[in-house]
């Protein structure tokens, strides 16, 4: 029990995010592993089941990878351990809003 580890998954070693496989509270210390890569993280906020958190610091505008593929870009600086979701990650595809704003 002392070593009770929260369950998480990181799909590819190059990913900047991992997924919580259970509700994990802020402050939890995690060891996230993917193949050869091992990252130690302290969660900055509560992460609900199925949600993502940053495994590295991410700069504004940087592409974010999951499954080793681009899932969007950071809309602001994101620190390691932060919740990564719609508030700080935006899609790059199907952005009709930009089409309107640019025209």
């Amino acid at each position, binding site marked *: 029990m002392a070593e009770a580890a929260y369950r998480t*998954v990181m799909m590819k070693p190059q990913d900047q995010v991992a997924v919580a*496989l259970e509700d994990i509270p802020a402050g939890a210390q995690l060891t996230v592993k993917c193949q050869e890569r091992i990252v130690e993280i302290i969660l900055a906020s509560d992460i609900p*089941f199925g949600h993502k958190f940053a495994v590295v610091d991410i700069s504004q505008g940087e592409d974010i990878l999951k*499954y080793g593929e*681009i899932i969007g870009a950071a809309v602001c600086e994101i620190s390691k351990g932060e919740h990564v979701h719609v508030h700080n990650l*935006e*899609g*790059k595809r*199907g952005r009709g809003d930009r089409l*309107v704003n640019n025209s």
Partner: protein
Amino acid sequence: MGEVIVLSTIPSGKFWGYRRPDGSVGVRNHVLILPTITCAAQAAKQITELVQGTVSFIHQHGCTQVGEDYDQTFRTYYGMGANPNVYGVVVLGLGCETHQARSVASELAKTGKPVEVVSIQDQGGTLGAIAEGAKIATRMVQDASAQIREICDFSELIVGTECGGSDACSGLSANPAVGVVSDRLVEHGGTAILAETTELIGAEHLLAARAVDERTKKRVYEVISAMEARAMMMGVDIRTGNPTPGNIEGGLSTLEEKSLGAGNKAGSTPLQEVIDYAQKPTKKGLVWMDTPGQDIEQLTGMVAGGAQIVLFTSGRGTPTGSPIAPVIKISTNTGLFERMGDNIDLNAGTIIDGIETIDSVGQRIFEEIGAVASGKWTKSEILKQHDFGIWRIGPTF
């Protein structure tokens, strides 16, 4: 304790099916009351209430449609009747609509299955049409009931794959498990349909790289561009509608993320072709049908394209079913399986729980296909979830 007779004594990769005059194989033996126009949908439903063994569906289409939109709706009606799960069809029309019952019926008759036409205007109104349709359906149902299942091979199956109400587990558990099933089905000489073009935006490069030829590769990018352009025309971020609020609550942040998870259903075999909505695949193996991500429209397109069975993964939970094809519902997480057991047939959440592998869940789903194809009912069939929706691509005039 009575003994349970298990059908699964037949070898893996085989099932008990109904052979059709055109050589195709059904896993069900429905008589379909097919309304080609919304005006006939209520009468069709009344016939199904009178005659056991019949199915139908409600819709709002079939008139004042033109061009490609007319063709796509026509192809969908035709495909529902032509699906091998249908023994015979009573095509029900009003009389003055653009999608004439007799046009659909004459195409359907080429399959060799029993097909008859009833028109409300020719029968002097609703009651006459219901009576005539019910009489014809009664004969067809009795003939259908005399047909005996025979041993068939998985190579004769077209299995649709779909995810609806996705969560972040979809791409980790149920979708990769369906990918394993897709690979095994293709290995057995069968056909797996990947669809929901919208939900492949952002994952198209992975599928294009698996295309068997340049033409298929080009079509991948064409259907993706066309779908994305439709979204762009709306002048908003597609995220206002897809991923849906439920997807977002489940942890999916962007359409690309959802797509990369959805694409897992395609397994790892080469992509043989990209087909139009409600079109029958011309090749065996993995095929991509161009459909929207909306669950019912996608399901209808695949069933009209000849899918006898559909695998449907869900993380949020959905009741979706088809009037003519069994839909095997697979939960991506154990919580959903426990909450919505009335709707979900299998649980892939065991992968997330760490007690089963993707391969072993894939094997369970593969075996369930054999059982369901041989007659086992799915939850959506038991609950009479007869969903139907056409992907309309033009305005109504």
